[in-house]
């Protein structure tokens, strides 16, 4: 057989095409997902109803969607800086966990105290934890030329084990019936609901703020330009005097800091204590969010919401349709594949050729 398919670069890509690409990719992935649900012997129509309609129409679920989108938005905004600069931080999950551990550590250390300073201190600690953890792969790359892909990923496993050690060992709640979990945080250490009877907290506002700042940085600042230049044309960026190593460190610190902040918000606003598995793989899902949003801040904001809808839908589908969460995991990978294929078709035209290559 011969490859008689060729990619021909497109001269210009219209705005409509750019906007529609991720939408079409999502639809294609949903279509394939529907076929798989059907193959598993469930009704695809019912699955779409649970995955897409219910989270968007039920006011309670809608709040959960916004809560779920908060960490995704924060982490993916940070990752955009890395991916735009062609630096591959795939260990955001680990930085997210470290943020939770640092932030949660402050909550545990100040347990029983009250004061408006506790939450800001936890946030700072969380961001710092994520930054420190992200600095490791960045420095290993800068100093020793070690691929950041493998080191950042390896550190995810280490972070999971560290969390496990803490909640089973020194930080275990003495009154917790031997469950691997820390003491429940007091009100002073928990992000409070924005309105009476609701669950939505200030973390969502912080995520929106991060989106806004990222838009400004990419549109208006020299640093934003340096990041893009370093990713698209590293040699040219070097000649322009942008320090390659500093960019590596800074984009890692930004993404680590935002992932860490997200981790702190998750344990303080959602979980209310430290326990294993609070990461839920959100650090990996955020990678998909970043690509679905075409590595733009606005795109990341919108796709955080879309993915959050699917995740909330997945939670209720587990109960109501007995569809395993692994189906959602598979779907997320599939979605990233269709998004990447869409990106490629955005840049190139597929042309069938008769002669063998």
């Amino acid at each position, binding site marked *: 057989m*011969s*490859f008689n*398919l*060729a*990619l021909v*670069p497109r001269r210009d890509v219209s705005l409509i095409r750019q906007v529609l690409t991720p939408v079409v990719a999502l639809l294609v992935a949903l279509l394939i997902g529907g076929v798989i649900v059907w193959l*598993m012997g469930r009704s695809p129509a019912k699955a779409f109803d649970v995955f897409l309609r219910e989270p968007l129409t039920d006011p309670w679920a809608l709040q959960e969607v916004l809560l779920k989108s908060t960490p995704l938005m924060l982490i993916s905004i940070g990752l955009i800086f890395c991916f735009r600069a062609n630096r*591959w931080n*795939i260990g955001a999950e680990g930085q997210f966990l470290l943020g939770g551990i640092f932030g949660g550590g402050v909550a545990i250390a100040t347990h029983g105290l009250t004061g408006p300073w506790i939450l800001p201190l936890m946030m700072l600690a969380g961001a710092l934890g994520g930054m420190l953890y992200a600095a490791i792969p960045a420095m*290993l790359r800068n100093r*020793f*030329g*070690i*691929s950041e*892909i*493998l*080191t950042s*990923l*390896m*550190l995810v*496993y*280490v972070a999971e*084990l*560290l969390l*496990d*050690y803490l909640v*089973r*060992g020194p930080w275990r709640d003495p009154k917790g019936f031997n469950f691997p979990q820390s003491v429940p945080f007091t009100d002073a250490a928990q992000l409070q609901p924005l309105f009476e009877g609701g669950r939505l907290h200030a973390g969502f506002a912080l995520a929106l703020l991060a989106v806004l700042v990222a838009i400004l940085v990419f549109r208006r600042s020299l640093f934003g330009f340096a990041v893009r230049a370093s990713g698209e044309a590293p040699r040219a960026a070097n000649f322009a005097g942008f320090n390659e190593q500093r960019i590596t460190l800074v984009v890692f610190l930004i993404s680590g800091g935002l992932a860490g902040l997200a981790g702190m918000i998750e344990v303080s606003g959602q979980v209310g204590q430290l326990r294993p598995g609070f990461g839920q793989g959100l650090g*990996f899902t955020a*990678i*998909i969010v970043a*690509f679905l949003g075409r590595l733009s801040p606005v795109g990341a904001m919108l796709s955080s919401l879309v993915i959050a809808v699917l995740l909330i839908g997945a939670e209720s589908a587990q109960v109501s349709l007995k569809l*395993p*969460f*692994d*189906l*959602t*995991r*598979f*779907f*997320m*990978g*599939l979605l*990233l*594949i269709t998004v*990447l*294929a869409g*990106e*490629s*078709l955005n840049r*190139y035209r*597929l042309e069938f050729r008769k002669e063998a*290559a």
Partner: protein
Amino acid sequence: MEMLPFILATVFTAATPLLIAALGEHVTERAGVLNLGVEGMMIVGAATGFAAAVLTDSSVFGIIAGALAGMALSAVFALMVLVFATNQVATGLALTIMGLGLAGLIGQGFVGQPRAAIPPVQIPLLSEIPVLGKAIFTGDFVFFLSLGLIAFVAWGLNRTRFGLLLRAVGESHGSAHALGLPVKRIRLVAILFGGLLAGLAGAYLSLIYTRFWSPGMSAGRGWIALALVVFAGGHVWRLVLGAYLFGGITVAQLHAQAGAIGLPSQFLSALPYLMTIAALLFLSISGRKGAGAAGSLGQPFVPER
């Protein structure tokens, strides 16, 4: 001394899946393609292999099915990377995420089912040698297959015409294309071979190493295999050395946990991951980078005509 053959045998068993997966990825990367989906292909191989073995009641068939499942997943990767010229890092990552979910779906009904061991192969005469004989010349057939694969990959890459073409394509796809080499076709073979071996490594995990299926059981071994390829720097012998070293660390870590030496078990479990980073660091400090990565590793290939 009594324990030595036993310990050596467990080291080989722990190292074999790493070795097999790393050999496959080594070939893929020599052809200039970085497939970060090893973890995903491995776990799909583990789930499919186990499911097929239970359904057909044949572990040998399971191992073949696992290998083929890994290859099937790598075919998706090949389609994306070769036809659509997508970013290899992101595509590989997608493959891993997809694979973890798919493996969970495939293995759903098989969690906790035990599986009998495959009877070991004893090489006549050689297995009678004291200590080493029992460790090296008595083992499961995949272990011996892995020894054959080492030779096959080393010979294939360095001593055959196809190996030469494969390395040429990896070193500079532009030049190879200009010379009229079928870049994509050679890369397709390399990617499928990598997938086949990753799937085989996964099936080894669920059918020989642990002999049960549990979700997430590959536990980062695919990523460690990727690190081994970097560690090897283009030399198959260093890849083999690295794999057995890691097998040794895994076993030592398990013995230390059982022996309760006062360190928290989580710290010991973290050792393989920390050692991976340490190994890459050592490689960099010692300056022994070897041949390094293939020249056009990870770059999308879009011929102009």
